[in-house]
């Protein structure tokens, strides 16, 4: 029988994998993808609690989270393109200047 803790453990696992990706990878595009994974893990929590409570509010919150993820991906990828045009790299440990 499935309980809420199954979904919480799944969400925690995806969240943790995403955090490890953000902290340890060097490629900025993969860091952005890990952030998408983190937001997705949060959505699983919201939808699981919405199912548990029998209320649709959690799903509405998940829609807002998806909206934020889309906006963040668009702006972040625009910044990466601008950065790559100037510095010819996508590695985060070479991004150590605000101006060049």
């Amino acid at each position, binding site marked *: *029988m*499935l*309980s*809420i*803790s199954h979904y*919480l453990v*799944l969400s*925690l*696992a*995806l*969240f*943790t*994998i*995403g*955090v*490890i*990706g953000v*902290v*340890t*990878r*060097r*490629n900025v*595009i*993969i860091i*952005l*993808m*890990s952030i*998408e*994974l983190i937001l*997705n893990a949060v*959505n*699983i929590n919201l*939808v699981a609690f*919405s*199912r*548990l*409570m*029998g*209320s*649709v509010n959690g*799903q*509405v919150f998940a*829609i*807002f989270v*998806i*909206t934020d*993820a*889309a*906006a*963040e*991906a*668009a*702006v972040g*990828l*625009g910044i990466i*393109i601008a950065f*790559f*045009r100037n510095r010819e790299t996508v*590695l*985060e440990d070479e991004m150590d200047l605000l101006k060049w």
Partner: protein
Amino acid sequence: MLDSIFFYFFAGLAVVSAILMVTRRNAVHSAIFLVTALLATAGIFLQLHAEFLFIVQVILYVGGIMVLFVFVIMLVNLDVAVRQMRFNRMWVVGLLLTLALGAQVYMVYRYVRMGDAPSLFNMAPAPAAQLEPNTQLIGQALFSDPYVLPFELASILLLVSMIGAVVMAKRKV
């Protein structure tokens, strides 16, 4: 029974492809595994009777955001990045962060489990019929009192991010 089979299938798929996404060297492979993880999450949503979010996840995440990612991976230079070091030297920090997070969640879980009173963790889920015309209920919630202002603000956020993305990616500012 069937519920559990679906859950374990999609959960295993999501976790395995998330791990592969973080560890692959080639960014295109990472993007493909992220697509698999997001589709598995969509399956979890369907198993939780959230049909509208399932469709939104497939169309918006897999169809929209991931296409954007793949486009940008094609725009930046792949051949150089493949030969470079994949991870930085922060894996100790990553490990500690993970352990701290896991210990925190475990402590909360133990704390809630200790009481005899029926807690959140052994509460039976509400009948699925309460969420039944799913799209209709979400639409009504989005356009009724507490959520209508954030809903309109989200459209402004999307407009601002669209302008920001165009300005950032433009050749000459």
